[in-house]
């Protein structure tokens, strides 16, 4: 199907002048377990089609599920990290509906007895304020297979003549995290939505439960949105926008839906309760299936699985494994490193916190660590469409390299300009900083005789400038230093050169 045309939207400010948005987010996270939720099949991404399937995850007649212990532990740890209560007794339930990529035609999920419920996550906004997102629940379920739509326009379901299904993904553990409806966000709704997903992503990453790669679908976001007229407290009819799979899209989708709902409401129309599809390329949503009474999932307790009843001791033992919350850790590190708010924000946005932490721990100064990881390498990583940690890993450049580079500077072997050249060499794969310095013959000249000779030569060649310095215009020495450094082919300590110039001209 060709792209549907965009529906009418009201400008954002206009929409918010008349309506208050009510926002809800449902995030599905694929756990990074070795095996699927209910069978022992591997979960490796990108495996040959239908090579990681068994009677259980293919839904063959007779097969039965058995719960992955690690899946339950991860769910409880996520719940605890989201400040949830953990159910002392809960069950899986079957969500019944037919779909070709769902092998049993029911999803094994949880219904009215989620493993975790009633939590919250504090989200920091750009202006430094904090918004508390209330968490309704986090529950365990399983992923579906993947369909390749053939015929029609490539990869699209509409117009396809048939579909080819790979069930490798079917049964991979998912945790669905559902917020309570967020009210009072006003014009900050798009930002809050994005910040929530980003904060959640960092938290899940810190927990080590998922690789949270939105681009690979291991973290997927649905945006529920409705508007209510200002001064009303009755929620409007909501739309559910599916598969909003980047941080930027989360923000855009919320903004778009606010405008779209407002356009409908302000013209006296009624919003349809429906599923919407987000189009990353055009930045709009289009109507999907209408929610009707046909949507009857006939949930009931899964009779093939027994209840999950974690003891208080189990829960406390899992609580003890929780890492420091990312926000608290960032605060602690910022103060330890002495970074300004702006510097810290840049570091966080560039995903450099872990790398800098490692580098400082390995012995570098916080300033040095930040300088080397955010300079040239950041530019190159950006050109390569990657982030610094990923790019550095691909080049085999490590925190130890930064520590070594910095010690070459502080030890007096290299000046800053030389250190930059050495870093270029390291990034080019020429070896460790010492090896690069050796190979390129980079070393500060320690011989003051040679330096004095160069100073004398430059002073003689620039009598006017020299006179200015003698007359007390010390800043004019800069021009002489540059020439001395040139004379020394860069291999001199600029501070030493400056001292010698001043000594020569002021005595």
């Amino acid at each position: 199907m060709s792209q549907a045309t965009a529906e009418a939207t009201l400008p954002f400010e206009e929409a918010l002048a008349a309506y208050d948005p009510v926002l809800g987010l449902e995030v599905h996270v694929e756990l990074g377990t070795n095996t699927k939720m209910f069978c022992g099949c591997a979960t490796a991404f990108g495996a040959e089609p239908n090579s990681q399937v068994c009677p259980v995850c293919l839904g063959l007649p007779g097969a039965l599920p058995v719960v992955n212990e690690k899946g339950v532990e991860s769910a409880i740890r996520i719940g605890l990290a989201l400040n949830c209560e953990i159910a002392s007794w809960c069950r899986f339930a079957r969500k019944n509906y037919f779909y070709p990529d769902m092998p049993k035609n029911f999803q094994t999920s949880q219904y009215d007895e989620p493993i975790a419920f009633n939590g919250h996550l504090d989200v920091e906004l750009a202006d430094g304020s904090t918004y508390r997102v209330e968490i309704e629940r986090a529950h365990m379920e399983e992923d579906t297979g993947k369909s390749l739509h053939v015929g029609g326009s490539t990869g699209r379901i509409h117009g396809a003549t048939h579909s080819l299904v790979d069930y490798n993904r079917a049964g991979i553990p998912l945790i669905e995290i559902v917020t309570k409806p967020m009210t009072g966000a006003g014009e900050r709704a798009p930002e809050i939505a994005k910040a929530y997903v980003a904060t959640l992503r960092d938290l899940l990453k810190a927990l080590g439960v998922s690789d949270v790669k939105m681009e690979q679908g291991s973290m997927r976001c649905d945006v529920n949105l409705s508007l209510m007229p200002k001064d009303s407290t009755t929620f409007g009819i909501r739309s559910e926008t599916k598969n909003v799979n980047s941080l930027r899209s989360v923000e855009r989708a919320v903004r778009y839906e606010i405008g779209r709902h407002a356009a409908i409401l302000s013209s006296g129309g009624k919003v349809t309760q429906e599923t919407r599809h987000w189009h990353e390329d055009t930045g709009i949503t289009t109507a999907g299936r209408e929610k009707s009474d046909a949507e009857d999932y006939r949930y009931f307790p899964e009779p093939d699985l027994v209840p999950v009843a974690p003891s208080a001791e189990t829960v406390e033992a899992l609580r003890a494994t929780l890492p420091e919350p990312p926000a608290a850790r960032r605060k602690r590190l910022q103060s330890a490193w002495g970074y300004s708010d702006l510097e810290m924000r840049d570091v966080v946005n560039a995903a450099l916190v872990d790398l800098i932490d490692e580098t400082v721990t390995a012995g570098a100064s916080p300033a040095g660590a930040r300088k080397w990881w955010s300079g040239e390498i950041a530019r190159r990583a950006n050109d390569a469409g990657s982030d610094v940690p990923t790019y550095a890993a691909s080049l085999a450049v490590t925190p130890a390299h930064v520590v070594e580079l910095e010690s070459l500077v502080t030890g007096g072997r290299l000046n800053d300009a030389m250190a930059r050249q050495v870093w270029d060499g390291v990034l080019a794969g020429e070896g460790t900083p010492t090896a690069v310095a050796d190979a390129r013959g980079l070393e500060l000249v320690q011989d003051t005789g040679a330096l004095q000779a160069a100073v004398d030569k430059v002073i003689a060649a620039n009598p006017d400038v020299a006179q200015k310095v003698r007359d007390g215009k010390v800043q004019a020495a800069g021009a002489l230093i540059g020439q001395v450094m040139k004379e020394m082919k860069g291999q001199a300590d600029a501070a030493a050169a400056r001292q010698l110039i001043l000594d020569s001209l002021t005595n």
Partner: protein
Amino acid sequence: MRMSELTRADVAHLAGLARIELSDDELDKMVGELGIILESVATVQNAPIDDVAPMSHPMPLVNVTRPDEVRPSLSPEAALSGAPEQDQQRFSVPRILDED
């Protein structure tokens, strides 16, 4: 409520939910039969069940799990051996109407 109130439209709706394409004759027959059965099973509501906890499992087991260790999967050939149609090592299915 009396279950025999189940109408032909109700049965057609249920058959749709259950993905069974019933013919008109089948529908007619089913409405009558289900009416009788439903009236009989509705007697569960007459049992003294106030304050009784529902029982979903016959045995009171809890926390049955397995370690997160990989077990051999089927070969793709075995996995696809029953497929009505297959292509490119995948199950070939008719066009799907809409994404969920």
